[in-house]
């Protein structure tokens, strides 16, 4: 995708400051989504820069997770969804009829709210993605598994028990395993749907640290209802309310000097 994007085109003026100088990885344009008759997303337009962490905050039910699931087409699994608008990742239209969904999901990985390791060994969990992609050589797989576990800051803890069941690990370790599993296929974008909501503060801190390290290699989009977390880790933050993107900007500016009254109310805790 061309470097200097004329990002003003198509982006609402009040919500687009700060992304001008960056290369956009994910571009969403006028996205509307209905679950049956109920509209869940209204005219969402934004751009997420490459190699940055973009966070979404907002009260429950505002559509953050729905938006996230659009990006790797996990919403295809739900019946009765209708969408208009476009999403481009790395310049390619995600909903193009010629687009192979599995190929998309290789480029866009996802980590879920509740960690869901497979009932297999730790090694097999991380090697699952590469195996799907056709890697069968044992030493290749071992290399990939080690690299991913190191990147997920899990290698030191589990390197001597890779053949044990993944279900025997603690919650924080399991979530890091899911992150290792997701990055084993080397995606371009990593989507994280409230990854720390089920974890204790120490595990949360470890994962936040991990996200900052991963930023250099991946574009990360994180959904969270923990504002402090968004403030700590993200470079850009978007605030969503009732399916609309109310404000989007550089994190520091959004939290210290929000332009929209609703954003300010949410951040200061007047509702939500």
């Amino acid at each position: 995708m061309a470097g200097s994007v004329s990002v003003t085109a198509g982006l609402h003026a009040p919500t687009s400051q700060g992304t001008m100088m960056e290369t956009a990885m994910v571009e969403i344009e006028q996205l509307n989504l209905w679950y049956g008759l109920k509209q869940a997303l209204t005219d969402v337009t934004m751009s997420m820069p490459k190699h940055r962490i973009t966070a979404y905050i907002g009260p429950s039910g505002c559509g953050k997770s729905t938006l996230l699931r659009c990006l790797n087409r996990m919403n295809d699994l739900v019946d009765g969804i209708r969408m208009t608008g476009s999403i481009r990742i790395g310049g390619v239209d995600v909903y193009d009829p010629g687009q192979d969904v599995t190929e998309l999901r290789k480029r866009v990985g996802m980590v879920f709210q509740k960690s869901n390791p497979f009932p297999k060994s730790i090694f097999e969990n991380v090697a699952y993605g590469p195996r799907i992609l056709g890697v069968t050589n044992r030493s290749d797989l071992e290399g990939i598994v080690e690299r991913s576990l190191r990147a997920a800051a899990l290698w030191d803890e589990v390197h001597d028990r890779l053949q044990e069941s993944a279900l025997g690990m603690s919650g924080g370790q399991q979530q890091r395993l899911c992150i290792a599993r997701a990055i084993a296929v080397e995606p371009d974008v990593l989507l994280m749907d409230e990854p720390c909501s089920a974890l204790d503060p120490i595990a949360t801190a470890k994962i936040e640290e991990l996200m900052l390290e991963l930023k250099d290699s991946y574009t990360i989009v994180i959904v969270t209802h923990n504002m402090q977390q968004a403030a700590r880790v993200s470079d850009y933050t978007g605030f969503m309310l009732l399916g609309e993107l109310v404000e989007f900007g550089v994190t520091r500016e959004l939290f210290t000097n929000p332009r929209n009254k609703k954003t300010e109310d949410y951040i200061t805790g007047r509702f939500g």
Partner: protein
Amino acid sequence: MSVRHKSFWSTGEPFVWLTGGALTLALLLVVGLITLIVWNGMGFFWPRQVIRLTLADGSVMTGEIVDREPLPGKRNEYRIKLKVANRDLYGADFQWVDESRIVKRDRPADVAVIERTEWGLLIGSLKEVRDGDKAIAVGGASAWAEVQKRMDETERVRRQIRAIEKVEIGAINARQEALRLKLRGFELRGITSGPEIEATQKQLAPLREKYQALTARLAELRKGQSLTLVVTADGGKEKDIPLAQVLDVRFPNAMGFAAKCVFYLAHVWEFIAGEPREANTEGGVFPAIFGTILMVILMSIVVTPLGVLAAFYLREYARQGAFVSAVRIAVNNLAGVPSIVFGVFGLGFFIYGVGGAIDRLFFAEALPTPTFGTGGILWASLTLALLTVPVVIVATEEGLAAIPGGMREASLALSATKLETTLRVVLPAVMPSILTGLILAMARAAGEVAPLMITGVVKLAPSLPIDGQWPFFHLERKFMHLGFQIYDTGFQSPNVDAARPMVFATTLLLLAIVVFLNLFAIATRNRLRRKYATSAV
């Protein structure tokens, strides 16, 4: 109610007693039933002592005591049921004797019990061994020595004769039958002469020669077995039996404990591995064991893919709605259909329908004798597979529902297709449930008899469905089945008294086989559970 009573009821303790009591009762019933079967079944083979009763009128009765009951109508008088055997001499091999008529009882050490290939047991004293008219060994002791000397030889010759009859002549017969069918095939196609016909007919001649050679050999072997054993029974009757018919001679009153144990084990082995004799009241039940196990295996091979694929479709691929719910209800109700109805369906659809079509297409030369158009182990297994498929479907569906959806999502998010997700993640995780379904299916199938009676089980099958003749698997053959044996031997037998102990032994064996099959499947399932334990299962 007083305060104390009220607190007793409200603690829930009576309910604990009630449920515990019900469980105890159920366990007692099961344990009682199994003990009854084990006692009678395993006691069947233990060699009993032979009693000689001298009655008030001077007559003598020798035999084994099998029962004792009070005389009908009187309370303090009893009568004994005596197994006098010697069916060909006396007519009835079990006789009742009033205890009041008995003057003396003793256990003579020289009374012999002889097992024969025909007519059941023979109880009496050894008199002599003859060769035609010549007496070779006279007197009980020398006759016994002579018999012992000859037993191994006689057994060897008997085996040889059987081998020639069953294997070699059997092979010739099969070959002749195949050639006959070939000729008939030509006839059906309108060819009545020509090089093919001549070539086939030329093959018949060497077969006939071989047959005659074998028959001659058989006659020779049989001629060599000219020895006979003379036995004296009660009432002065004498019986002259060819040594070739004698399977075993024992003196039960003179047997020590060790000898009895050896005898017991030998007979248990014969029961399991031997062929039946005397209308299934003696000998072994090996063909029935073989038929039962083979049928359960065939049924499992058919029902597992069928049930698992159906469950996967219902749960994973079909859009959940009214139609799928209706299908699910129909499947569950199928489990409640009486098994005899499945038997009739199997007869109509598999045997007459599919089997008839196969016969017309591939075995037209054999018609009007049906090959697949009649009962056989294949159709019986398929019928039972239909009977048990709802069980497998329900168990697999339960397992699939228990797998958290997050696991499937995680796999899809890693760029797997739905098929890859199903094969690599879902299928291993649902294996324990599949095995549960298979266990239930096997247990149900091993016990069903009604549908089998019309789809291919017989009282006595001439050969096993798998043998040494090409093509080795003869799935169109009829077979024997342990459940049917129990019914037939126990209730359709001409000699119920002789058959009764056999029924217990067969029941015990069937129970043991079912328990063993289930234990094997349960062990496999436990191993898989440990390997694929999910947080939900």
